[in-house]
């Protein structure tokens, strides 16, 4: 017997009799003999719960988590505080052991939570509609680019080189298979070079992807870019950090047509990179080109308000190869977590997280550049991340910091070979003045 398998020998005997089979093997007679494995799989011996826990603790303690390290690393995955209730509520098994709400009468919990999630994503971004989630920020960006290609019937997209390097890479991997050209536009002093962008625009450009705050944490001025993009009848795709929207203008205010981003920072643990969630919101005009699931409000036969999956005629189970996307399972639980987080922080809390992150990041830059050993790489307004540069190799800085149990910044040279000795640091509301002072102190003597 195994703890997850309830069949007793007597049960099995009765069931086989009822089927009219002699043995379990009879039920596998349809598998040709030459295809049978006929040996035991080569796997470790099964573990009891106690053995498993001890094995997994050994593995997990072979890592150094940000519980032990003071984290100044961001670059697309952020160490914001997660209130206790977020996990408690998301881990209610009525939520996490259900699947896609195809039977709405017994899935109102999931459906309502997603409806609330969609509402809050719309309120954050200022857009008309949001879907129920994408795999992550990078794949959401791909889907947005495809929406632009499909709705403009053009075959190129422009992406700023200030967009997260991994997002650009994922975009390129996908577009290669769709014969869609991805054109990168250079940066000037850490922001998208709008003059170069202007020179690139033409009848082939479906959309322009700008990250804001960008990969370097800089808030881009999109006034000119928006004009350039829309005068060319292309779509403006804005990739945003949802926490920044606590204080920064919503993308709809600067004319974005599609807003996407990585939603991890909304209450999701870092989890060594996943699962996170991508969000995608757009205008009513582009709604029918949206990928993924969407929850709508209706009523039941008694007139009671009820929620249901809607606009399904875009999806793979109906449209098959003509669907707007191939996505089926999405990031439902991560979207639920994001919803609980946004509600818990609420109007005031989201603002305060954003304000404290801004204040602390600016304090950190001041402390780190005080003596001139390090200087800011760019001189532009930023949110919670900033790049600094000095005479020491970034790798060396990070390994020294690690000796003091500090997780240092992202080494920019990896993706931008010209940016030598440069680190991208992130400061969230979780960092204290003492931790920041310590960072500055250690870095001063490297």
């Amino acid at each position, binding site marked *: 017997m195994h703890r997850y*398998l309830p069949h007793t020998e007597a049960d099995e005997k009765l*069931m086989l009799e009822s089927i009219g089979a002699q043995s379990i093997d009879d039920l596998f007679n349809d598998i040709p003999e030459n295809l049978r494995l006929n040996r035991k799989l080569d796997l470790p011996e*099964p573990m009891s719960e106690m053995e498993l826990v001890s094995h997994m603790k050994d593995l997990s303690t072979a890592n150094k988590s940000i519980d032990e390290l003071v984290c100044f690393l961001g670059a697309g995955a952020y160490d914001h505080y997660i209130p206790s209730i977020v996990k408690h509520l998301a881990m209610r*098994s009525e939520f996490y052991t259900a699947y896609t709400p195809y039977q709405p009468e017994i899935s109102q919990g999931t459906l309502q939570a997603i409806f609330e999630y969609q509402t809050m994503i719309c309120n*954050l971004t200022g857009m008309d509609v949001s879907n129920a989630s994408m795999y992550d920020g*990078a794949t959401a960006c791909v889907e947005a680019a495809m929406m632009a290609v499909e709705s403009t019937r053009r075959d190129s997209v422009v992406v700023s080189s200030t967009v997260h390097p991994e997002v650009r890479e994922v975009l390129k991997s996908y577009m290669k298979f769709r014969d869609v050209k991805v054109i990168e536009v250079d940066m000037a002093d850490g922001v998208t070079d709008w003059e170069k962008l202007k020179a690139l625009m033409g009848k082939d450009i479906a959309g322009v992807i700008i990250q804001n705050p960008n990969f370097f944490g800089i808030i881009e001025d999109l006034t000119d870019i928006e004009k350039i993009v829309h005068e060319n009848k292309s779509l403006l795709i804005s990739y945003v950090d949802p926490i920044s929207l606590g204080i920064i203008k919503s993308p709809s205010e600067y004319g974005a047509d599609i807003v996407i981003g990585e939603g991890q920072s909304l209450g999701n643990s870092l*989890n*060594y990179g996943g699962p996170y969630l991508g969000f995608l919101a757009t205008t009513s005009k582009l709604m029918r080109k949206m990928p993924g699931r969407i929850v709508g409000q209706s009523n039941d036969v008694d007139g009671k308000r009820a929620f249901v999956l809607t606009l399904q005629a875009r999806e793979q189970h109906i449209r098959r190869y003509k669907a707007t996307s191939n996505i089926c399972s999405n990031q439902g639980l991560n979207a639920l977590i994001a919803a609980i987080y946004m509600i818990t922080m*609420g109007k005031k809390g*989201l603002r305060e997280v954003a304000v404290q992150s801004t204040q602390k990041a600016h304090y950190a830059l001041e402390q780190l550049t005080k003596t001139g050993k390090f200087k800011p790489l760019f001189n532009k307004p930023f949110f919670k991340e900033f790049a600094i540069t000095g005479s020491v190799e970034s790798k060396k800085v990070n390994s020294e910091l690690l000796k003091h149990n500090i997780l240092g910044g992202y080494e920019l040279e990896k993706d931008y070979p010209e940016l030598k000795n440069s680190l991208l640091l992130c400061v969230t509301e979780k960092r204290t003045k003492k931790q920041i002072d310590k960072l500055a102190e250690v870095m001063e003597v490297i």
Partner: protein
Amino acid sequence: MKDYNKLIFEISKEGRIAYSLPPCDVDEKELNTLIPDSFLRSEDVDLPEVSEVDVVRHFTNISNKNYGVDTGFYPLGSCTMKYNPKINEDMANLSGFSNLHPYQPEDTVQGALELMYHLDQMLSEITGMERVSLQPAAGAHGELAGLMIIKAYHESRGDNKRNKIIVPDSAHGTNPASAAVAGFEIIEIESDKNGAVDLDKLKEVLNDEIAGLMLTNPSTLGLFEKNIKEIADLVHEAGGLLYYDGANTNAIMGIARPGDMGFDVIHLNLHKTFSTPHGGGGPGSGPIGVRKDLVKFLPVPVVEKQGDKYVLDYDRPESIGKIKSFYGHFGVAIKAYSYILSMGAEGLKKVSEKAVLNANYVMNKLKDHYYLPIDQVCKHEFVLGGLINKENNISTLDVAKRLLDYGYHPPTVYFPLIVSEAIMIEPTETESKETLDGFIDTMIKIAQEADENPELLKSAPHNTPVRRIDEAKAARNLILKWEKNK
């Protein structure tokens, strides 16, 4: 409880809060001296203002309107809604896993990399493939990555005209949709009367423009594709590759392996076969496995072992590239890894044996009451074609809705498309004979009700939190978010 019908926005009251943060301990400056006013929003985001108790009660109450595997029997065919072991959640929540930043130096994440490396090895052994990548986020994402690999393979051989993928008409919608996203043209072939691949039809479409064939085995009808070797030979002779949709792996673990059947590229659904919860729609995890000569095409990074150190290898010039941020759904992979360690080789084989036993038991008990289009031994699931007695015009949807009244999650309905009025039942191995007997009795009772009191079914469900929903209205009069005064 059942009557709780508020949206969070409707209980919001100005001034309430549910969070706490320490005071800002650095010197605070005027915000607009740090960020110019032109970038700042003029009003706070319209988010709810509620207390902590409000949030807790709200989500507890709405969760009570949900049905999960922990609530009861969930025989949703093709989705493998087995029990999700609690210990796996605890393991994934260990701080040494859940609090790792994806860009930490490799030296500080050796345990995580070791886990990924071992999971790759174990999944490779279970499926008979050379290597497995944990990158894809879900089944459909795995399909897409696998198809990209198929294209890369042909192109690496200078074989550039293979732009078509064959998909049987019994396939899941993601198969053709993924092929389209990967830039292929789709050739759909009709299945034979047993829902299997029709060899003659396959031969007709095979030529030097075919990149590959996508298949699941057991098929979406829950039947083992006996001619799989022949199919594989035909596809290979024509220069194509064979892709395995792993949605149905729960039937064959420790018994037969896709690698041995001739599949070249596969995906698995950790959220089906390997017990990770479905999360109300996700996250899933869809690792892909490949045969030896295709390893070089796997997405980057690949976890490698160098001496006694684990590393993330990005230096793979023939790779299809990056298909997702970071390294896949690590948090989900931990749960699948814990599951495999809890089961061991014998346990996994028992899983498949009991899954098949359960499906055959239920099928045999129901076939006198519901139409069984193909009466032969099934694997982990089977497909019925609605009620036998069609006189009262009771549809599969009516049967499904009536099941809700009896406290069951209905099976998958109207899929696969090749069976009309399809009811696809997958009990899974974690269900006891008592649970199955209860479900069988209920299904038979519903068949009787259909004869005696059809109205009861047509107007079902009767005792769920909400009753049948006007889906047409939802699509016509779109309300996709809550708005004040609306």
